[in-house]
Structures are given as structure tokens and as C-alpha cells.
């Protein structure tokens, strides 16, 4: 994936979402939030640290990463070991970002559900979806 264009796409989605959350219609605002949410999710996936060729599902029973890494930091020398060489090939794409996005998607969905029903209640209380009607006149 080309990061420049992907970043550009994400940025554009951000901009469009922002434009929508500046609208006055409650539902439009929520749509805007959803667009931004998409953008953020893609952004997180794209911020994976390394890039392999396969989905992060291990086929065999053998793991493929360089097996002699000892996963402990040695802080005594001010060195954070192990430092994996940049050329290290990993067969999979970064699974962590995917897990993060999954969590983010679900959380985002929960909140969207809540805010949508909130929007409905707002309409019920105020009889309009105009956000500017939601202001209170007491500073």
C-alpha cells in the first residue's frame, strides 16, 4: 500500500468528516463523526510498524519471526534490547494494529449507537434536529 496516497485519503476523509460535524443538523454531525471514525480506523491500520505479505494468521505450528530474540529490556546500559534490524523480514502484517482497530471499531459503534438514540431523544424534546436550537440561554 502506498502510504502517501493512503495518508492523503485519510486526511481527505478527516476533512470531509470535519466539514460535516460543523453542520447544524444533528444527524449530519453524526454522519460526520462516522466518516472520521472510518478515517481513524484506516489510519491506525496504516500505522503498523512492519508490513508482511500475509494476513496475521499463522498457518503452521512454527512461528516465523527470528527465534533467538530474548524479549527482555536491558536498561542497565541504557540500551533497549532487542533492537530488531530494520531489514528483518516478517511474513505477516502487523497484527497489533488490527486488534487495536477492532477494539476501536466496536467502541466507536457503541458510542455511535448511543449518540444516535440520543439524537432521536433530542428530536423528541426539541422538535427539531437543528443543533442551534439546542442552546440554552443562560451562558
Amino acid at each position, binding site marked *: 500500500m502506498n502510504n502517501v496516497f493512503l495518508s492523503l485519503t485519510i486526511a481527505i476523509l478527516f476533512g470531509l468528516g470535519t466539514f460535516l460535524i460543523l453542520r447544524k443538523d444533528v444527524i449530519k454531525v453524526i454522519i460526520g463523526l462516522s466518516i472520521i471514525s472510518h478515517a481513524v480506523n484506516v489510519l491506525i491500520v496504516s500505522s503498523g510498524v512492519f508490513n508482511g505479505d500475509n494476513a496475521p494468521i499463522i498457518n503452521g505450528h512454527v512461528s516465523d519471526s527470528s527465534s533467538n530474540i530474548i524479549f527482555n529490556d536491558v536498561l542497565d546500559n541504557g540500551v533497549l534490547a532487542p533492537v530488531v534490524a530494520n531489514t528483518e523480514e516478517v511474513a505477516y502484517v502487523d497484527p497489533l494494529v488490527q486488534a487495536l482497530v477492532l*477494539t476501536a471499531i466496536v467502541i466507536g459503534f457503541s458510542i455511535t449507537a448511543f449518540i444516535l438514540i440520543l439524537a432521536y431523544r433530542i428530536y423528541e424534546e426539541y422538535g427539531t434536529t437543528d443543533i442551534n436550537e439546542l442552546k440554552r440561554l443562560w451562558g
Partner: protein
Amino acid sequence: MNSFTVIALAIFLPFLSAATVPLAQKILRHRVGWFASAMAFVSFLLIAYVAPVVIHGDTFTGAVSWLPSVGVEFSVYIDGLSLLIGLIASGIGIIIMSYSNGYMSHKEDLSRYYQYLLLFMGSMIGMVFSANTIQLFIFWELTSITSFLLIGYWRHRPLSIYGATKSLVITAAGGLVMFIGFLILHSITGTFDIPTILHDSSMIENIKNHDLFLVTLIFIFIGAAAKSAQGPFYIWLPNAMEAPTPVSAFLHSATMVKAGVFLIARIHPIFSGTEAWFILVSGTGMATMVLAGFLAFRQNDIKGILAFSTISQLAYLVTMYGYTTYHEPGIGVAAATFHLLNHATFKACLFLVAGIVAHEAATRDIRKLGGLRHEMPLTFIVASIGALAMAGIPPLNGFLSKEMFYESSVEMGAALGFPFGIIVPAIAVIGGVLTFAYSIKLIDGIFLGKRKDEFLPHHIHEAPYVMLIPAGLLSVLVILFGLVPSIPVHNIIEPVTSGILLETVHLHVTHWHGFTPAFMMTIITFVLGLLIYTKYDSLASWQDRLNASYPWISVNYYYDAIVNNARTNAYRVSSFVQPGFVKTYINALLILTIVLIMIPMIALSGDLIPQTLSFDINPYEALLMLLMVVAAIAATVLPKYIPAIIALSSLGYMVSLLFIYLKAPDLALTQILVETLTTIIFLLVIVRIPQTFREKLSKANLTRDVFISGLVSVGVFIVLINATQGIVPPFESLSHYFIEKSVSLTGGHNLVNVILVDFRGYDTLGEISVLCLAALGVYNLIHSRGER
């Protein structure tokens, strides 16, 4: 018992007794006041017990640990000054609380009244014996608060509320300013301990040479002036007269208002000897003296006269403490101290008389009073003694200290040279003249002249003894100090003055010095005083005209303008800043975000865009991204809900395609599902929301929104391009560990799922909690219908 324990007891006894007053009231009923005065008496005895320690100008310091982390102790400093004010506070306390037994109706909330009084007394004692600025400030503010509560004792009365608020706002605010002064002092000296500073001349030298010397002085002085009703801060004191009269006598004339004077005396060694000290302290004092004297003369309410007179008398003290700048060793400090003592006696006495008169004659208006000398002869005598002492008539104690005031003014004027040699004594005389005039007015208005039957009750009794005796006692003191000045001078004034100046002082006070300038000034004072008194009407009409045409010359004008309109003005500000539109708030958030991104952009001005950008792109990717953008644009521009939601949905599917492309099947699955669910919920909601509202976009708004959105886009792009492209992380990623250990440690092959349920299962626990929360929240939303 050592002195520390004794003083600590003297401080905390009133607090403890305040706590037990309700209990005492259960036993003593309406005689609970005697319990309070007994407690005051014990405190008085305790303070008197330590008097020998300082009688020769010595000092005593004692401390226990309190807040060691910030270097503050609970510490006690006993010197002549603190002892004097401590004795005044507890001694007048005894008198006032005894007097209150007669003054306060049995129907009043006596328990609260005496609680407040005792709390005040304890705070006052605590304040004067404080050896560090923090402790001093704490008790200082406590006196403000108790004063506030006492002024507002009759809390349903609008005037009480007004007076209480005013006193609190001014004294507490002044206190805070003073507090900052103390803190600056701390930052200069590294200590909060007052004796440590006082006894270390190099430290004092250091303070005087410090850049912040003036600021510190001004800040501390503002606190003192606010408390002692000096300068423009005088305005709270007249309104404080809404308190019950004994309270006014106690707090607002004899003790609390002297706290400011006390503070000036206390910091005298630190700040005096500089021009700033004289200009600030004496300047304020003289201005206040003349203004308040005049205003006292103009009052018709007895307590009004006494209030302004108090201000004016306090101004004497302030002026005199300011005098000692270039003059060593001056009699200013001694004179001030003597007058402080004298004022406490005669003014308290007069207040008690005012209370008696108001109590018996049911009015305090001097225009309605008159001729009471026949019905209240004893009160008349007591009052006359007090008033004449205030007027400076020999041989009463007021005369002596007034004489010393004139003497020190002449001295000071001489030290300053022409034209101050004339101006300073002249101002002093003006102050004296006015004092003379209003003192006479007081006696004349109440007791002399003709009885005004139309305003007064049929029978006016002589005061009950419970009220008369305290006043009488004070008048006896007035006479005693006047006739035998050596008693107070040797036992009190000299040690106090030594304590203030930190050097031994010997004084010689007599009635007759010969034809000194001071004596001449006294003569002038009497003559002019009588003259002014007869010209009252023309002066009054002059002032009324002045006030009518220039309302802004009154300080109260500003106070009222600020405070009364505070709410409306503040409301205007807050409504302007916080108009209630979500949109404004979102804009604020976004703009802050943009600014925060731009700050490092500008500050670091590095390469915003990394050099190594690749623009190779495969056509599928390009198409997918293009379609995503198009779908997003559609969701943005389609005006109706359903089409926009369908477009949003298609965007979601495209995102899931992208996830597929990025080798994320779990994500794609989730994305697809969530997208559809979101659509369903959108529909569920839109079913209930007919699309009636249609936003009309003005060109300006559109431009602005597009601009903000564009900035957000650019910001995100730049951060992102750097984060994902700028550098290759030199560190291992957590994911390496997952890939390596997943199968062996968790038995799972789907790394994403393994991370979700194992490595970061805790996140997932949070995630499902959020889901539950959404459901629970929706329940509350739906069930919160209508006003209940």
C-alpha cells in the same frame, strides 16, 4: 506551664468554648453570655500571666511542628505589641460579652451570637501571637469570616447582607493580596517565621534591596489597609455597623480593625526607613484621617458617626506608624501605640453608650434624639467622658496621645523640610479639628438640647446596670490613663514600642510640656472645632451638592457599580464566551487542535514532509482510495438523510475492502458487520425523525467551515505522513513478540484474535463493558422521558 502552652491555651480556649456554647445554653439558658464572658476572662488571665516575660522589652518564641513539608510551624511570638492587642481583645471581650447579656434580647439566637464572638476573639488572639506569616494570615482571615458572620447576624435584613458582603469582599480580598505579599517575602527570605526575619538585619537589608521590595510592601499594606478601613477601603466599615452594637464596639472599633494597624507595627522593622514606607503608610493615613473625619461629622446615625470616627482614629495610628521613616528614635510609634490603647477604651465606651441609647430610645438618629441627660444621667456622664477623651480634652487620655500625635507630626514635618514642615502638622490639625467637631456633635445631639418628644418613647429609662457597668468601667480607664499616664506608659507603651522598634525605649508623658508647637496646635484645634461645629449646615449643604453633581467621587459608587452589576456583567461575558452552540465549541476544539499542531511546525521548522516519499501506486489501490473519497464526498454533500446514510454505508464497505487489501480479514468482517448495524440503528432513529430541518449555508460560513476542515486535513496529513513514513522505528515492535509466542503460549493461530482475547484481553474486557454501557445508557435515554 511555659509561655507557649499558656498562649496556645489562650488561643484555643475560645474556640473550644465556642464549640461548647450550645451545651452551655442548655444549662444556662439566656444567661449563656456569662459563660462566654467567663471564658474571655480566663483567656485574659492567661495572656496576663505571660506579661512578665515581655515587660522589659524581651520577646519569646515557641513552636510546635505543624506542616513540616512546607516549613510552616504552629508558632507563638510574644512581645509587647502582641501582648497589648491580645489583652485588648480579651479584655474588651469580657466587657462586651457581659454587656451583651443586657443588650441581646432573650429571643435571639444567643448560642450562635456568642459562638461567633468567641470564635472571633480566639482568632484575634491567635492572629496577634502568630510567629509566622501563614498562621497570621489564617487567623487574619478567620477574623474576617467571623466579622462577616457577625455583621450578617440578622441575616434576613438586606442591609446586614450588604454590609457583611462588603466587609468580606474587601477584607478577604485585601487579605489575599497581603498573603501574596507574605509569599513573596518567603521567596526572598526563605522563611515564614516573623521573628527570624525581624532579628536578622542582613535579611532585612536583603529585602530592602530586592527588586520586589516595593511590590511586597504594597501588597502587605493593602491587606492592612483593607482590614483597618484605610484609604479607599474604608467603605466597608460604615456598613459593618449593621452588626449588633456590642459587635461593632468589639470588632469594628476596638479590636479587629486594629489588626491592620497591628500588622503595620509588626512589619515596621522590615520596611520602615524607606521613602516608600512613609509615602504609602502616612500618606494613606493622612488622607483617610481628613476624609473620614469630615464624613463622621456629616453623619446623623450615632453608629455612623462612631464608624467614621473609628476610621479617622485608625488613620491617626497609621499615620503615626508611617512617620518614623527618617526619624530615629521617633515618638511616632510610641504615640501611635498609646493612642491605640486610648482609642480602644474611649471608643468602646462610646459604642456601648450608643447601644444603650439605641436600646432605650429605640432610635440611633441624632436628629430625633436630644435632651436625654435628664432621663439618663449616668449614661450621659459616661458618654461625655468618652467623647471628651476623643475630642482631646485634658486631662483625659485622648488629650495625651493627641498631643503626642501633634508633636510627632511637627517632628516629622521638620525632618522632611519645607513645605512638608507645614503641610504635615496642618493635616494633623485638620484631623483633630474634625474629631473635635464630631465628638461635640455626638454629645450635643444625644444628651443636650431639647427632648424631641415626637420621635421618642414616653419613658426612657436609665440603662440597666449590666449594660452601664461595662461602659462605666471603660470610662474609668479613660480617666485613669489620663490622670496617671505612667501606668500605661511604663507597663504597656514602653515594652510595646521596644517590641516594635526592637530597641529599648523610654518615654516621659505629662500633661504640660510648655508652649510647644503641639500645644499651639491643640488650641487651634479647639477653636476651629467649635467654629466648624457651628457652621455645620453650610458644610452639609456643600457636601450634598458636591455628591449630587459628582457621584463618582465616592468610593462606594465604584464598589456598588462593580458588585451590584457583577452578576449581570459576568453573565454578559459568559454568554458571549459560551453562547451555547455546539458548533462554536467544536470549532474551538478544532482550532485548538490545529494550533497545537502548528506550534511545533513553526517552532521546529524542520522538514515537514519527509524526503523519501514514494508515489508508486497500483491501480487497484488508487481506484479503491478514489472510490472511498467519492463515497465520503457523497455522504457529505447529499442533503437527505437516507441517501447520505447509504453513501456512508458504501464507504464502510469500501473501507472493509481496504482492510481486505491490507490483509486484515477480521477487521473486514467487523467493519462489514458494524457498518450494517450502524445503518440499521440509523434507520431506527430516522424513522422517528422526519427530516424537516434544512440548513442554509451562507457563503461566509461555508468558506469558514471549508477552511477549518481543510486545515484539519492538512494537519492530519502532515502528522501522518511523518509518523508512517518519516522514520523506520529503530525498536522492536510488540508484535514481534506476539508472532513468536502466540502459538506456543496461547494455542491460537489467529494473531488478531489472540491479541484480543489473550495478550490484550483486558482491552476487550473494556470494550465489552462499553457495549454494555451503550445498552444501559440507551435504557436511561428512553426512560428519561418528560419532566418528572
